[in-house]
């Protein structure tokens, strides 16, 4: 308790310091959509909630027992007019909100690629999407850029105004991939691939997190999302590829190196496990993501790119089977 009070003098200062309310100050069209829906619903619902709260207080005060002046209808318990009103108003409001519900659930569907409309809005109608494969591990995030042949751990670097096309899986427990300021989150589940489409409309350094409890390392299972203009991003990619960046590790990310990172850090009983440091890989073995999905499915992967991928995954399987026999064995 004593330690707690020490913080108190700092309280007003902290409240005044310009803090970011991530969900109300989004940095991309999806996040803006999430926010707009939230604010819209709040506003519409307030139209009923506020009058109800006021009426509760007014009625409670006006019809208090000591107020003999107020009218008292001791047997009154029904009124068709009021019934129509109390059913009608909520139904109308919910019908309106249902319309928005239908529209926004489809328009902002996480599985739907970023629309042309959104791209035009940020002023880059022709930007090609950037593919990122996301694997959640104990307790870190692995990001593979399949088109660029590089990968990172616990840091997601993306160009602004470019649709981000995420394929997500887990090589451990289930969790949720979430960058609050960019918008919607989606679960990562082992043996399955989920999808998410986001876009950053301005540069920034955003918090990214695991939004579903994953075990003792959960609180540190976070990553920074760094959005930068395309040129800067290209330069960063070059820097990683050439190994010029000090965060680049020596090994290429292949099945063997992957195993090293797959192992969870020790989790002592009396402390949190050490957070995983940011790491860059200058090259990545192709098909690693499919391989991770496949190893929980007796080598099969649900494929949406074409038949050849399936065969590739089958080839990979023999490798992964050797690496982690206990995971695939029945």
């Amino acid at each position, binding site marked *: 308790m004593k330690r707690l009070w020490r913080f108190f003098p700092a309280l007003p200062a902290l409240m005044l310091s310009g803090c970011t309310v991530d969900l109300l100050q989004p940095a991309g069209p999806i996040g803006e959509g999430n926010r707009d829906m939230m604010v819209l619903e709040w506003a519409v619902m307030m139209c009923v909630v506020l009058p109800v709260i006021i009426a509760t207080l007014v009625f409670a005060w006006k019809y208090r027992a000591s107020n003999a002046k107020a009218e008292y209808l001791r047997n009154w318990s029904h009124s068709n007019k009021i019934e129509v009103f109390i059913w009608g108003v909520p139904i109308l409001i919910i019908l309106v909100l249902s319309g928005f519900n239908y529209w926004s659930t*489809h328009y902002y569907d996480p599985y739907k690629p970023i629309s042309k409309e959104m791209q035009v809005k940020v002023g880059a109608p022709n930007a090609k999407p950037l593919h990122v494969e996301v694997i959640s591990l104990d307790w870190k995030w692995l990001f593979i850029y399949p088109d660029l042949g590089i990968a990172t751990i616990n840091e997601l670097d993306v160009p602004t105004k470019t649709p981000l096309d995420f394929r997500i899986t887990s090589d451990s427990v289930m969790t949720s991939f979430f960058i609050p300021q960019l918008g919607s989150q989606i679960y990562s589940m*082992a043996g399955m691939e989920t999808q998410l489409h986001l876009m950053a409309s301005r540069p920034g350094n955003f918090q990214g997190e695991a939004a579903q409890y994953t075990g003792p390392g959960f609180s540190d299972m976070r990553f920074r999302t760094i959005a930068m203009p395309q040129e800067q991003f290209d330069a960063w990619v070059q820097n990683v590829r050439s190994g010029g960046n000090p965060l680049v590790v020596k090994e290429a990310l292949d099945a063997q190196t992957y195993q090293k990172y797959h192992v969870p850090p020790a989790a002592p009983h009396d402390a949190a496990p050490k957070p995983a440091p940011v790491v860059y890989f200058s090259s990545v073995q192709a098909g690693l993501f499919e391989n991770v999905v496949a190893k929980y499915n007796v080598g099969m992967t649900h494929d949406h790119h074409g038949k050849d991928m399936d065969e590739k995954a089958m080839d990979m399987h023999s490798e992964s089977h050797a690496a982690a026999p206990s995971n695939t064995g029945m």
Partner: protein
Amino acid sequence: MLGKLTLSAIPYDVPILVGTFIGVAVIGIAVLAAVTYFKKWGYLWREWLTTVDHKKLAIMYVVLGLVMLVRGFADALMMRTQLALAYAGNPGYLPPHHYDQVFSAHGTIMIFFMAMVMMQALFNFVVPLQIGARDVAFPLINSISFYMTLVSAILINISLFIGEFSNVGWLGYPPISELQFNPGVGVDYYIWSVQISGIGTLLTGMNFLTTIIKLRAPGMKWMHIPVFTWTAFFACIMILTTFPVLTVSMALLALDRYVGMHFFTNDGGGSVMLYLNLIWSWGHPEVYILILPAFGVFSEIAATFSGKPLFGYATMVIATGIITFLGSIVWVHHFFTMGSGADVNTFFGIMTMFIAVPTGVKIFNWLFTMYKGRVRFEGPMHWIVGFMITFSIGGMTGVMMAMPAADWVIHNSLFLVAHFHNVIIGGVFFGYVAGLSYWFPKAFGFKMRDVWGKWAFRFWFVGFYLSFIPLYAVGLEGMTRRMNHYDNPNWHPWLLVACVGVFVLAAGVACQVIQFVFAAFDAVNRKPDAHDLTGDSWGSGRTLEWSIPSPVPHYNFARLPVIRGLDTFHIEKELGRPAPVADLEPIHMPKYSAVGPVLGACGLVIGFALVWHIWWAVIVGLVVAFFTVIHRSANLDVDFYVTVEEIRADEEAFAKRLAAARAAE
């Protein structure tokens, strides 16, 4: 011999647990010593532990619920203080290994062993009295229900001192609850305590559904049933339709963990999505099982203290039915983020939103019950005004989360945590506490001291907003639930405020404890004018329970009441009670039985032995339970008749008290 159980399972190296253990041990020994000193063991066994009387079972449920409330609340205090400290490199005082068990225990205990227990207490006490029945349909099964609940609560508390509790949250999501990621006994404690209490709840649901359908007093048509009993009726329907799903999900998870099956594992064809669908198709109806009876309590209280009938009785019943139906088909809104298609998400989103319609109607009904009434602000009425304000806000944030496009960013955040505490505290908890103080004089013949109840309300009301508005805020700042430490400077001030809030709530809990301590004191030393002479404790009761003496005789009704419409007791007060046509008759009642406690003991042994893989003890427990049931089935000496003399004496005493009360006026 002892399975996995070894000395190393005792956490003597964790000071918090050692301290707790010493505290519990001291209190426990003091209680046992007191019972021995006052030679009350025989009384306790004959009058309470073996009882099948629904009113005594209700009181035991309340005691259990209050103890569990304190336990669950201690967990809440620990979580909020941890998060106030664990900022910017400070690890706080609870490492994840301990903290994760604390939040899991908090959720499990508050839902299964506080809220569900209080709800069953209210069912037990109120339902038979409101419908003019002398007991429930299956009195012995009622006792067994209680013991299943009691031993599972004991089991979950044993996990504090022997082994560990689950660390994966109150719903035990796989795959992290699977053996591969969780080889300890924590999840097993969770599985078996939930499983055993689930059996108890299922039996309660069956028992009360039958009671309401079959044991209503002559003349009580469906639309004469008091609203609380209606809400119990719908809650029982939901219990019967959804608790078997919980049993199955827990059983499948247990099969995964005990015999290596693959229902929810990562590999071998298991699917976490299956578990999420199963557990939430129980879990969402569960919150309506909790809230509907609270709605019932508010309906009774609003009418009584407004001096008017409930506004829109038929509407209330219909709305409750609609909630029951809609509440059962919205479970997917707990995982809009799992990647379902837009059409699926839309369907479940819109269905969820529509629950706001019947719920909104109910709020308006209570509002118009106060309208043009004479509202007396005694203790119970405070909670309902606090509820209407708080629950409206909780309902609003609920509708916000029902829209998938909004839920995708607030799912699993502290915004969600704030939302469900908003409805569970502001709705369920306020309702049950109001119900406790409302029916307390019926059970004991005197009122609890109102001033402490009012202070409890004030602290709970203010404390709620102080604790949970900050959580809405940090949720909007992207903070997810179940974090153990953080370094985001924006969150810190809010979490400090929330910590202050939880101490205000603690003051509320303290007031409630004081209120009960005073009640125990008053039970022995109260002034004569504190007695409830008429049985109509609040002076404006409308339903049958207020027509009989307080405390209620063990057979409830000397003569079965004749129902003359909705609010029969109110009608009788207005028009006079018709003279009884027949003379008193002996009343057929069930005998008390040791079967409940014996089966409970078997349940505890089986549960504990399953957790630790002590197979011989599991078999012993099962065999004893089996032969207990056989023995009971062959026992024909299970009932007796209350003599006319006893009933007549009670009736004459009551008549004298009524006359005294009339003279005093």
